[in-house]
């Protein structure tokens, strides 16, 4: 077993609560903390609009904390490191998000998230809460082959759903329309990640998996789940040349399409590396006649301190472009 990594924490048991204390203190004009690790908008959205709820493990900051706010999501139920919150806490989140038009529970597709979401919906049913639904979100092409899209896991590309679904639910959409919009964005999104390093659990101090210096793994999940296999690490251009074609072929994205591009930092790559990677993405997309509508580069859904990135593309039409450009004010997602 490798040496323990030093992390700037206090007591391992207090990591999540102390992180939430700090986050909510820093961004008290946007969010507030309530109940058992719920993070809510400081000012709830107007009555009569569909509430958006998202649970998830920690270790992916600023996801989902940074996505609570006007034009985005309403409630985040925060779990332990890489651990989905339990159903009673999700139920509390659903209640907190309900502004009279019901709530949509957004689920990043992982076993723990899905099982707890299903239990939470059964609890809702038992309590007579019927204006609630859930949508399972996934985007990672490495986790199951094409035609088995619904087996895929949720990763950084869910970014596009939060932004556009959030904007959509500032309008007068009902619950069914909100779910359909989330599915539309999901079904137009594809992602693939790579990693140059592992990360260490702040709870146990142990590295989550072994990855030799000088190697890389394509297709890593958001918790360091193994991907398509390991190989020698390549240059920035060669890495993009390896990763972009399977993403394009999967949807498929075609000449004439307009796309949003996310280059998500998994933790500890430099912005310099991400810009160099993006340069190649832009060049290759231009080469095949795909137009980039907008791009985002930075740490949005991280895997602790992993050195790696995810490349996500979302095909957009006029409706989605308008939703993308709508205002948003989360701590880590601003759109003027």
């Amino acid at each position: 077993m490798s040496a323990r990594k030093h992390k700037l924490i206090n007591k391992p048991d207090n990591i999540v609560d102390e992180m939430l204390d700090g986050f909510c203190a820093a961004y008290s004009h946007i969010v507030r903390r309530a109940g058992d690790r719920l993070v809510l908008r400081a000012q709830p959205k107007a009555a009569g609009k569909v509430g958006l709820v998202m649970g998830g493990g920690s270790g992916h900051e600023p996801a989902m904390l940074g996505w609570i706010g006007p034009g985005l999501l309403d409630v985040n139920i925060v779990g332990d490191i890489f651990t989905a919150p339990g159903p009673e806490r999700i139920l509390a989140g659903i209640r907190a998000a309900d502004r009279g038009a019901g709530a949509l529970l957004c689920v990043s597709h992982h076993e723990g998230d899905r099982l707890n979401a299903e239990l939470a919906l059964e609890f809702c049913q038992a309590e007579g809460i019927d204006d609630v639904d859930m949508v399972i979100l996934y985007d990672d092409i490495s986790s199951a082959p094409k035609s088995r899209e619904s087996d895929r896991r949720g990763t950084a590309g869910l970014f596009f759903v939060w932004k556009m679904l959030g904007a959509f639910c500032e309008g007068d959409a009902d619950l069914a329309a909100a779910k359909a919009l989330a599915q539309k964005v999901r079904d137009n999104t594809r992602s693939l990640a790579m990693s140059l390093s592992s990360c260490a659990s702040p709870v146990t101090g142990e590295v989550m998996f072994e990855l030799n210096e000088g190697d890389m793994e394509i297709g890593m999940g958001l918790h360091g789940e193994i991907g398509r296999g390991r190989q020698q690490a390549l240059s920035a251009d060669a890495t993009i040349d390896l990763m972009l074609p399977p993403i394009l072929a999967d949807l498929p994205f075609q000449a004439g399409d307009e796309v949003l591009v996310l280059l998500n930092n998994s933790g500890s790559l430099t912005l310099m590396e991400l810009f160099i990677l993006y340069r190649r993405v832009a060049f290759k997309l231009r080469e095949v006649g795909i137009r980039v509508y907008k791009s985002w580069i930075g740490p949005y859904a991280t895997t602790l301190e992993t050195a790696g990135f995810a490349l996500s593309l979302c095909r957009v039409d006029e409706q989605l472009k308008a939703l993308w450009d709508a205002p948003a004010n989360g701590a880590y997602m601003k759109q003027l």
Partner: protein
Amino acid sequence: MMTIRAAQLAAMMQAIARRVTAERELLNRLDAALGDGDHGTSISAAFNAAAADIAALDQPSASDLWTAAAKAMLNRMGGASGALFGTFFLKGVPPLRGKDRLNKSDMEAALLAGLQGVKARGKAEVGDKTMVDALEPAVLAFAAAEEFADGWRQAAEGARAGAESTRELPARRGRAKYLGERARGHIDPGATTIALLFEAIDGWWTGKA
């Protein structure tokens, strides 16, 4: 016919919590090979919470005990493990309702309902390298036995053999499924927890009986 009083179940839950806590580091190590390495920490916290919550109940019925255990699993643990261990206890509640003294067939009904619940929730069968590999043989062995004593002993043996059998299996469910063939050679931590659970119950029973 031997019966268990509800109050005795509190001691059973404490025995499970002690055993799982004693093996916390082992469970973390097993999980490190297949997951994120904290199964021992989270499952021991959940069983300790269950034991403490149960100790705080005033004259609990058997179904109160099972409900408290379910809530501790669901709320303190979270993740897939929380949902599955929680479901195991949650589904055992209806067969225990209204009973102050449990005979073997009452316990059997609760364990069988829990097993069915876990299999339905996790969509796992024996051979998928999950807790079901230990839970199903344990519960079926308990059900096949005539008396509590034989039942607990055979359940513990069945669970341990089932947990060991996961070593040579590829992973098909949960986060470990992405390891696929690379999961061979590692025992499933959830199945190991089930083995510890039934061994603790057997130890508690033989210490008492």
